[in-house]
């Protein structure tokens, strides 16, 4: 039988060349280098994901990525770049700053970390073979994922964060990613957060673009949460309007643990945020949610895989998407309930509001249930602003644009109100108002 040689796009060919070029210069040797090779082998074999790949059906990277941008080097003016970032500026937090994916020590509170928190820069950790690296790649349902594999092949910096057992961290950690440059670049930062038994921590994550050239970001945050842990996570995508931004949150949640991860997306020409979560212990709960606001020709994808492998866990997902112009939203949410995961309670909702006739939403909720004593529900809606509501509001004196903004705010508010941290919530709400204010 003849061997089939797939046709490679220019970007795919360049990606292979870049990896061959770089692999000996990236931090880490031995097992780490072998890990990079293995991860890249997946990419070399399959190429960029495209619409023929089920998980990427609605987000075709092969056609979106025309060129593979070179991996960003540490910018010479890294501190100045970080200083251009505005996200969560008013939020009281310990900051770890990243310029084009590289940790910027002079803009990070490494010397003022809260008690019980340790941070190791990833580049150094990879070079020395740090023991915490063993916490990477633990989520089974994320294995083989393109964005995760790409990050694993190219990861150049980031941080290993450990929250010691029993520590209630009194200040939020803010992972501040600021991207910017005068020529195209790619990033591959990796964050691993080990939260030991009984610890609790709040993590805010912001991604901003402040440069002039289009870039390709691909960040991965992994959280390994022990028993009895509480993790509160909020995330903002305010990437540059011409950026392609992939991001992954991969979580293993121990017993009697609680994780909340909420976010807002306004940036990127194409973005995809993936959450892979595995329940590894009983009586744990998960809340995921977000508000996505798109216009122009933006494309934003939210993809979730929640793996209920053990009994007695709850998961709640609430995602709101507002789409204007010719933009496209994607929501893919998969809840897997394994045979042993009795008494699972899972509820997933994705609601989209289309503000123009050329806006598109693709909703794909999936339940895979192999246990028989569970409660699972999912819903997906897609609609326009209600004419009767608009008439009611305008008849009371609100100009049409104000009435529309009020209804959109109310729609998004349901997801944003879940954010517990008041300062973060206010900023996300203000960004939603700002986005509405820019509507013409």
């Amino acid at each position: 039988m003849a061997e089939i040689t797939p046709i490679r796009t220019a970007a795919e060919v360049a990606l292979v060349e870049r990896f061959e070029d770089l692999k000996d210069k990236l931090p880490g040797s031995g097992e780490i280098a072998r890990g990079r090779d293995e991860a890249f082998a997946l990419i070399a074999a399959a190429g960029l994901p495209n619409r023929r790949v089920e998980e990427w059906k609605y987000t075709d990277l092969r056609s979106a990525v025309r060129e593979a941008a070179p991996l960003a080097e540490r910018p010479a003016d890294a501190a100045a770049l970080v200083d251009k970032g505005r996200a969560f500026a008013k939020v009281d937090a310990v900051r770890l700053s990243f310029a084009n994916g590289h940790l910027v020590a002079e803009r990070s509170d490494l010397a003022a970390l809260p008690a019980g928190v340790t941070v190791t820069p990833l580049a150094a950790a990879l070079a020395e073979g740090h023991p915490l690296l063993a916490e990477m790649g633990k989520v089974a349902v994320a294995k083989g994922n393109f964005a995760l594999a790409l990050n694993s092949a190219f990861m150049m910096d980031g941080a290993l964060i450990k929250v010691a057992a029993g520590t209630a961290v009194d200040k939020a950690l803010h992972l501040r990613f600021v991207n910017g440059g005068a020529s195209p670049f790619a990033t591959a930062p990796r964050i691993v957060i080990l939260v030991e038994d009984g610890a609790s921590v709040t993590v805010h994550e912001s991604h901003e673009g402040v440069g002039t050239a289009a870039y390709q970001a691909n960040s991965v945050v992994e959280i390994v949460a022990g028993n009895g842990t509480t993790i509160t996570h909020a995330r903002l995508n305010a990437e540059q309007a011409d950026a392609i931004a992939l991001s992954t949150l991969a979580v293993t949640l121990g017993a009697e643990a609680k994780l909340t991860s909420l976010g807002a997306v306004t940036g990127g020409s194409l973005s995809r945020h993936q959450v892979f979560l595995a329940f590894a212990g009983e009586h744990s709960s998960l809340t995921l949610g977000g508000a996505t606001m798109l216009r122009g020709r933006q494309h934003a994808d939210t993809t979730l895989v929640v793996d209920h492998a053990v009994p007695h866990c709850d998961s709640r997902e609430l995602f709101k998407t507002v789409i204007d112009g010719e933009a496209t939203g994607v929501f893919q949410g998969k809840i897997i309930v394994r045979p042993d995961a009795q008494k699972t309670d899972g509820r997933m909702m994705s609601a989209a509001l289309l503000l123009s006739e050329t806006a598109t939403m693709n909703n794909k909720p999936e339940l895979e249930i192999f246990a028989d004593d569970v409660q699972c529900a999912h819903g997906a809606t897609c609609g326009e602003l209600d004419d009767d509501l608009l008439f009611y509001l305008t008849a009371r004196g609100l100009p049409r644009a104000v009435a529309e903004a009020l209804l959109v705010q109310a729609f998004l508010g349901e997801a944003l109100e879940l954010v517990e941290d008041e300062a973060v919530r206010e900023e996300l709400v203000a960004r939603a108002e700002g986005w509405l204010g820019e509507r013409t």
Partner: protein
Amino acid sequence: MLQINNLVVEIEGKRILNGLDLSVKAGEVAAIMGPNGSGKSTLSYVIAGKEEYEVLDGEILVDGENILELEPNERAARGVFLAFQYPLEIPGVSTMTFLKAIMNAQRKAREEAELTTPEFMKRVKAAAQELHIDQEMLRRGLNVGFSGGEKKRMEILQMALLEPRFCILDETDSGLDIDALKIVAEGVNTLRDPARAFLVITHYQRLLNHIVPDTVHVMANGRIVRSGGKELALELEASGYADYREQAA
């Protein structure tokens, strides 16, 4: 104050108003009664500016200005207020936020200064008390989880706060028990003013025992077929609308 001349309106090709003429003076409370399907609610929507109705002919003058080309919010700024038969629920928008937004939007349209928060609170509190609306309701999403009576009281509260010059009450009595009806009617009666006119649309005479009209108009088949004083309402209560249906047909 309100002058409607030869109003002809269709929706989806179906004629609803058929050359309607109506005049309401400042200080007057005019009632419109009529059988179901006679076009009463359509008339209220067309005055307020609902989009899907097609006005084929005629004019609606408020203080001499034809308002047909104006947006609903522009009509509101000129003092037109419609109390809805079925007030809508808006989850996620607190009643307080909403009240402040509508009051300030109208003030802005009239080039008046925005209300300060204490002034706003003072006005809302006073008006709410009069209508037996408690503070807890004001914190909830607009009309969310409100009973039929509570929704109608909330409409009257908005009317009191916006101080419109021309008020339309569309079947405000529907779904109200007698106690709720009395509260709503009292709320309306306190707003009666020589400079303000009311158009009270109702199917039943009951509401007019509590809001006593100066004039009563009978509507059938999309036009006013008879006009008279308040005694006309009593006559209709006794005889029903059968005569008018035949007349219209």
